[in-house]
């Protein structure tokens, strides 16, 4: 049972009452009749009882589960103490006296004698139960029974079952119940539920009936379309149980009214159940949200477009600002549309807000949308973790970009460290916003294509972009090819991650080792390969190319960029950030070029990581494949690291030699 904290005394008392009411000894369900008697015995006015029933959600379920019962009892105590009945008061009101039930309901009980086999005994035990508990309760403090655990688990187990149970009851019994109602002395009641339900389900903006907080909460929020379904769903369970009970007029009245306010009860139930983890969505809630989703978008895997969602949530009468904030929180991938999970999260937030909860600053973990196709609960645990990780790789790249220009010399270490952290968490980043931005940039850059800001934050997008423009002279032709390549890669970003073809990686290595100094032919060959090969492989091979280049032609500054660009051009992604670097830094020393190229390489490695997400989400095998890939990438990067270290050493040696030469020359200059 969520959200309800009971003291030991209360626990004991409530469990006693529950077992009393649990005449059928199901240990799970309590018939309404008994419970209603009990409540009436609490000497509360009828509407309060009604409110309590709504609040605890029994009306929705049609019966009192243990949790509902306990909540109801608590509310009775609240009401008896004179506190206003609100969902929060369950937990917030401290030191509540135990609810008092007056054992003067035997007249009513006798009316139910027919339906209860063990009524007489129960009556006796009932009156026996009622007076002592207040005293007993105080006496029995401090006894921590495992009742606490048991009711909760049973309640928990029961709740998921309840939505399953109640709908089944509904269809066959609904016509009967309605007819039965009309026969009752309180004839007006049959109209009442209809009238009552009318206001409850009135479209937003109409006057609300009902005084309970729940009514006020819910009335503004139920969208018209599912009303009928909801009505039947809600109506019938309580009324179906009515059939089993010998209808007393008073009881009927109460029940009828509770039928009318069923939706509110459902909602209240939802809110009360959200206490434990305020943002947890219970199964009933989720089921309801899913139904709502279906009314807008029949395909559960599809999206609700922003405009439709806007209309839907506007009906909830929340201020636009809050809706806007809710949207921001729930549209996780920022694509302007809501998936099922996002929709549920948004709905839940709206419901919470209507109940007075403040909106969180960031999306609570339990509301984080799971990646679409993973519906098994087994993966749910993973999702938040993965999703939570998404921050790190996304952040690593942007942080790298400002640091890169300023840290040329210390670049290798810096990049390695940031790379490592980034690669260690190669998990889903929002793919779609990258796409959006990618498209944006595509639009912007196809025209000019010249100056590219280092957009490491959008590695999937950026790598294609800056390349053509950035290529230095000798590589002019290549940008043309690469452009075609790029657009192809950019248009099929999904395909690339979904075809992890690490086999090509080895090909590339071989290629890199062997064909260092060739150009066009290789490009042509590699273009189709690039499309299918992971970008991760590209950096390594391009790096290797660059490495070999640098080692063999270190002294030729001109050739180095050419080699760099040539060697890396076919491997579309990596060179792009490199080129960008080249241009933006205005330093074309060979070491710098290589360094920046490797930077770009590593950036592209990072880029490859975010492109993985969707496929990972969709396929466990893909996860393992990507793990393998990442491991290989790691080894590649480790090798890269060592190579760069080597290169650094070489460069330092060269520098020393140059300095020595300078020293030697200087005496001559003085002469």
């Amino acid at each position, binding site marked *: 049972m969520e959200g309800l904290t009971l003291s030991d005394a209360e626990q004991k008392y409530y469990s006693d009452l529950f077992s009393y009411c649990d005449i059928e000894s199901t240990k799970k369900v309590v018939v309404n009749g008994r419970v209603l008697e009990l409540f009436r015995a609490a000497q509360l006015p009828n509407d309060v009882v009604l409110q309590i029933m709504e609040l605890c959600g029994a009306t929705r379920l049609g019966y009192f589960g243990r949790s509902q019962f306990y909540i109801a009892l608590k509310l009775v105590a609240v009401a008896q103490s004179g506190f206003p009945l609100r969902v929060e008061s369950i937990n917030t009101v401290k030191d509540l006296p135990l609810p008092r039930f007056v054992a003067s309901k035997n007249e009513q009980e006798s009316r139910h004698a027919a339906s209860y086999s063990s009524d007489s005994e129960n009556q006796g035990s009932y009156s026996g139960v009622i007076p002592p508990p207040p005293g007993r309760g105080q006496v029995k403090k401090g006894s921590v029974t495992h009742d606490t655990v048991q009711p909760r688990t049973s309640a928990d187990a029961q709740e998921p079952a309840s939505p399953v149970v109640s709908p089944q009851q509904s269809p066959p019994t609904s016509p009967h119940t309605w007819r039965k109602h009309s026969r009752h002395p309180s004839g007006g009641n049959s109209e009442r539920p209809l009238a009552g339900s009318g206001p409850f389900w009135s479209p937003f903006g109409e006057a609300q009936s009902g005084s309970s907080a729940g009514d006020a909460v819910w009335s503004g929020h139920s969208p018209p379309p599912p009303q009928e379904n909801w009505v039947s769903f809600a109506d019938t369970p309580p009324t179906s149980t009515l059939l089993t009970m010998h209808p007393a007029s008073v009881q009927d009245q109460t029940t009828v009214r509770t039928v009318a306010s069923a939706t509110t009860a459902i909602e209240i139930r939802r809110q009360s159940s959200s206490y434990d983890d305020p943002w947890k969505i219970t199964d009933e809630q989720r089921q309801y949200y899913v139904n709502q989703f279906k009314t807008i978008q029949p395909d559960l895997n599809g999206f609700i477009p*922003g*405009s439709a*969602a*806007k209309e839907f*949530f*506007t009906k909830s009468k929340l201020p*636009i*600002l809050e*809706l*806007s*904030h809710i*949207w*921001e929180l729930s*549209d996780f991938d*920022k*694509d*302007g549309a809501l998936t099922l999970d996002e929709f549920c999260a948004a709905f839940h937030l709206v419901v919470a807000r209507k109940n007075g909860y403040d909106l969180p*600053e960031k999306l609570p973990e339990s509301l984080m949308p799971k990646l679409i196709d993973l519906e098994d609960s087994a993966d749910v645990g993973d999702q938040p973790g993965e999703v939570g990780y998404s921050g790190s790789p996304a952040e690593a790249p*942007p942080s790298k*970009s*400002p640091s890169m*220009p*300023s840290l040329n010399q210390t670049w290798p270490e810096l990049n390695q460290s940031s790379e490592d952290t980034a690669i260690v968490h190669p998990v889903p980043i929002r793919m779609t*916003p990258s796409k*959006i*931005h990618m498209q*944006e*940039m595509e*639009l*912007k*850059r196809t*025209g*000019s294509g010249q*100056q*590219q*800001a*280092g*957009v490491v*934050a959008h590695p999937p997008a950026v790598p294609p972009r800056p390349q053509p423009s950035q290529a230095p002279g000798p590589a002019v032709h290549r940008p043309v090819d690469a452009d075609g390549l790029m657009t192809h890669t950019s248009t099929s970003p999904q395909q690339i991650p979904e075809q992890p073809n690490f086999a090509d990686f080895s090909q590339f290595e071989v290629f890199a080792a062997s064909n260092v100094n060739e150009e066009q032919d290789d490009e042509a060959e590699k273009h189709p390969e690039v499309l299918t090969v992971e970008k991760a492989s590209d950096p390594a091979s391009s790096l290797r190319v660059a490495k070999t280049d640098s080692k063999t032609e270190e002294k030729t500054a001109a050739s180095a960029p050419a080699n760099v660009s040539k060697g890396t051009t076919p491997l579309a992604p990596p060179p792009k950030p490199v080129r960008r670097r080249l241009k*933006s830094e205005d330093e074309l020393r060979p070491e710098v070029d290589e360094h920046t190229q490797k930077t770009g390489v590593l950036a592209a490695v990072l880029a490859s990581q975010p492109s993985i997400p969707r496929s990972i989400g969709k396929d466990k095998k893909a996860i393992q494949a990507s793990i393998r890939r990442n491991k290989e990438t790691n080894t590649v990067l480790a090798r890269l690291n060592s190579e760069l270290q080597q290169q650094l050493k070489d460069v330092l040696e060269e520098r020393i030699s140059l300095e020595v030469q300078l020293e030697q020359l200087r005496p001559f200059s003085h002469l």
Partner: protein
Amino acid sequence: MAKNYPLYIRSTPTENELKFHYMVHTSLDVVDEKISAMGKALVDQRELYLGLLYPTEDYKVYGYVTNSKVKFVMVVDSSNTALRDNEIRSMFRKLHNSYTDVMCNPFYNPGDRIQSRAFDNMVTSMMIQVC
């Protein structure tokens, strides 16, 4: 008909909002001028506008235009020389991203003041980073 109302104004710790308002407005003219100047490359990603130095205070004003002609103007204190070109660019990029996120929100009507908390947080973090 110049509809140059600000969608969002945020100042650094100095909080001289009015002054910044004024500077931003005057810089808008320059930005417009630049936009009209570059006729061919109509959709240039960013333009860096540097150098609007006032006689008394040294402020650098950077401008940035999006595709939808939404202008971002950033005013920074010249004493803060640590701000380099790339950093400014990255800041504008982040601004642009946040702005598109705000736009994605169906509840946001283009032309409204930006009240998104996420946007605020992003801007705050950026400003803190700088100053």
